[in-house]
């Protein structure tokens, strides 16, 4: 087979060559590609830790690794996946690439800050990995005090790494907010913006407002360890509950950092492959903002058993229920869109449909956990583990993979193998459910999380879960095997392979260095698809 060459035309990929033209670039598209590479590497590392855990859990005894190593494994898995994969994955890769294209701009508002954010990401990743390799951390990704101020493991280095990477998120969020406000093409009013832009905007608000609180909190943990000053450690006069409040003030909204961009991606894909106007556009747009705002008010639901007052717990419980409203609005609008459309089941659409299914299960089980009485029963069991993996993995990663496949032709100018794309999407969906559904049952039967060993009666479901993880792993490896070859052998995609609306599809694939030969003038709203009958919404 010989490589297919595209007709010569200046694109962001061939505008100049050499490693320095990448490392010093300020082009948002190149920075997105560099993020794609580095975040994928982190995903592999986090996945490796998870693989070790699933192998260990194959048998009831802790035989492959001892308990201390197991603690370090799940900490490594959590820290890498949360802070270095799930949080940045869609904003830093797809958002970076697409935001200027979607709003008809030539770049982000602050291109150099954008490059800086990538270097900060690398530095944070380097420091954190150093901590994980040089001795490991056994606190879990939450760094709960007072354990984190007492354990002999490398907590200080790890918190500094997470502190650093936070600034990469802050800069990205700042850049997105300012860009969306100031660089929209003529005629592109707020209510003509694609939903993906709305959700990036909501995500950026959380980046900018929540991340600094985590940053200062983690620094204080490091300082407390260094100098033995009682901020959070009760033996020194501090209050460990205060740590939890501050930590979850960031880390609950962080869940919406992961899920909101995914919802944005899914909205784009569903409209494109149902070939119809997105039903209830304004509701979906405002639901993003509502989720971001409510997300700041529900952190206490992580602390129902930590000893907070019953009144506070009741308030947090009610507020957590309220988050279900905008989330359900989105799901209903997507289903209404599907109902009105004529659907084609291309790879991105399979991921989007998978997202709706998994997110709905994850969201509904979240309501179980928001209920005080049930939460006390299943706190720190595999029920919680399954719940947040349905949201964070089932939700965020399905959205990311859907988006990666949807915009791959735009990013690379090439089409991938549609057949293998569908196989991988279906494999991931089945593998995911096989891995995590048994964990709901395990949790309800009382198996606690974070243990290397467990009573033998839990073995059957654990084997099921580990076998599911094998399928899931294969599903995650497959895209590398057909996406990478597509760079050389894929069909030329053309500007708009999906017949989708949106400014990003009006420019060439891959786009020229300055995105548009001429800045577009926008005269209509988003999602002007023909629809099955007359358009609605």
């Amino acid at each position, binding site marked *: 087979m010989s490589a297919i060459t595209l007709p010569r035309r200046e694109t962001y990929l061939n505008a100049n060559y050499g490693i320095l033209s990448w490392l010093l670039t300020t082009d948002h598209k190149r920075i997105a590609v560099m993020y794609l590479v580095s975040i994928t590497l982190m995903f592999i590392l986090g996945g490796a830790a998870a693989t070790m855990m699933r192998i260990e859990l194959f048998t009831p005894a802790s035989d492959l690794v001892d308990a201390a190593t197991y603690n370090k494994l799940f900490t490594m898995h959590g820290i890498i996946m949360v802070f270095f994969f799930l949080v940045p994955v869609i904003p830093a890769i797809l958002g970076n690439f697409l935001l200027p294209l979607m709003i008809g701009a030539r770049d982000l*508002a602050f*291109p150099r800050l954008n490059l800086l954010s990538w270097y900060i990401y690398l530095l944070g990743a380097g420091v954190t990995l150093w901590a994980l390799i040089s001795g490991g951390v056994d606190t879990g990704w939450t760094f709960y005090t007072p354990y984190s101020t007492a354990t002999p493991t490398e907590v200080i280095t790890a918190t500094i790494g997470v502190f650093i990477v936070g600034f990469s998120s802050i800069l990205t969020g700042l850049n997105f907010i300012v860009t969306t406000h100031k660089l929209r093409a003529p005629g592109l009013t707020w209510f003509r913006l694609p939903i993906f832009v709305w959700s990036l905007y909501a995500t950026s608000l959380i980046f900018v*407002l929540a991340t600094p609180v985590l940053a200062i909190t983690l620094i204080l943990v490091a*300082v407390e360890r260094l*100098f033995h000053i009682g901020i959070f450690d009760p033996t020194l006069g501090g209050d460990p509950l205060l740590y939890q409040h501050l930590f979850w003030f960031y880390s609950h909204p962080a869940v919406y950092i992961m899920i909101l961009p995914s919802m944005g991606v899914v909205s784009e894909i569903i409209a494109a492959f149902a070939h119809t106007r997105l039903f209830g556009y304004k509701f979906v747009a405002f639901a993003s903002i509502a989720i971001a705002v409510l997300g700041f008010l529900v952190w206490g639901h992580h602390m129902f058993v930590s000893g907070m007052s019953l009144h506070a717990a009741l308030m947090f419980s009610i507020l957590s229920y309220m988050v279900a409203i905008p989330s359900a609005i989105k799901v209903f609008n997507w289903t209404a869109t599907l109902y009105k459309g004529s659907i084609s089941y291309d790879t991105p659409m399979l991921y989007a449909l998978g997202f709706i299914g998994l997110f709905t299960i994850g969201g509904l089980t979240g309501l179980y956990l928001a209920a005080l009485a049930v939460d006390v029963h299943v706190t720190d069991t595999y029920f919680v583990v399954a719940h947040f993996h349905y949201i964070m993995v089932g939700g965020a990663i399905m959205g990311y993979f859907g988006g990666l496949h949807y915009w791959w032709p735009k990013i690379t100018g090439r089409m991938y193998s549609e057949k293998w794309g569908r196989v991988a999407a279906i494999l991931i969906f089945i593998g995911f459910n096989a891995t995590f559904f048994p964990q709901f049952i395990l949790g309800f039967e009382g198996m606690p999380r974070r243990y290397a060993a467990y009573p033998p009666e839990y073995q059957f479901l654990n084997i099921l879960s580990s076998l599911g993880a094998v399928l899931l792993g294969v599903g995650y490896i497959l895209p590398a095997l057909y996406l990478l070859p597509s760079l050389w052998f894929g069909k030329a995609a053309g500007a708009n392979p999906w017949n989708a609306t949106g400014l990003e599809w009006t420019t060439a694939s891959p786009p020229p260095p300055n995105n548009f030969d001429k800045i577009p003038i926008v005269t209509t709203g988003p999602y002007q698809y023909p629809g099955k009958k007359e358009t609605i919404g």
Partner: protein
Amino acid sequence: MAESAAHLDMQFENTAQQHDTRIFGMWVFLATELMLFGGMFTIYTVYRAFYPNAFAEGSRHLDLTLGSINTAVLIVSSLFMALAVHTARTSARRLPLALCLSATVGLGILFLGIKGYEYYLHYLNGEVPVLNWTYAGAQAGQVQLFFWLYFAMTGVHALHLFIGIGLVSLLTLLALLGRYKPDSYTPVEMTGLYWHFVDIIWIFLLPLLYLIAK
């Protein structure tokens, strides 16, 4: 375009848009900064509610005179910063702008000097946790927590001021080189916003730390 016109980056249509965008960017950055200090203000509030007497006791060990002088110094520095922005916006003359900016720098350094002197006094009095802590009165642990928060909050504030002094010094140099004109003074205004923010943080720190001793 005239030679003096500001450099226009390729993502902008015109210099007005470029200016607005950058100023807005600074506002968003300050929102982030506010949340950073907000975390510390929260911790302060919680512990002050827990240990009101220890915090009042700790506060009695701070020098209100020096704190007040420093407040005045910082407010006057903000005045000069505001004058600098006004000057840059309305005239192309180098010297008045450079003078306003260097006055800002001078007052900023004076503030840090006085603050450093205060730290030194605390050190002599054995009121610095970790380095030299000899306080042995009632609720010693809680008073230490107060001092710890005092050093953390004023320290992070001083760090911000230090960065501000660096930025304004750079502006002074560039102003002398004639870099800022009424059509290209964005960096002066951005730095001005930052400077005022650091000033306002201090305005909150003063009562929280110095004025709570009843």
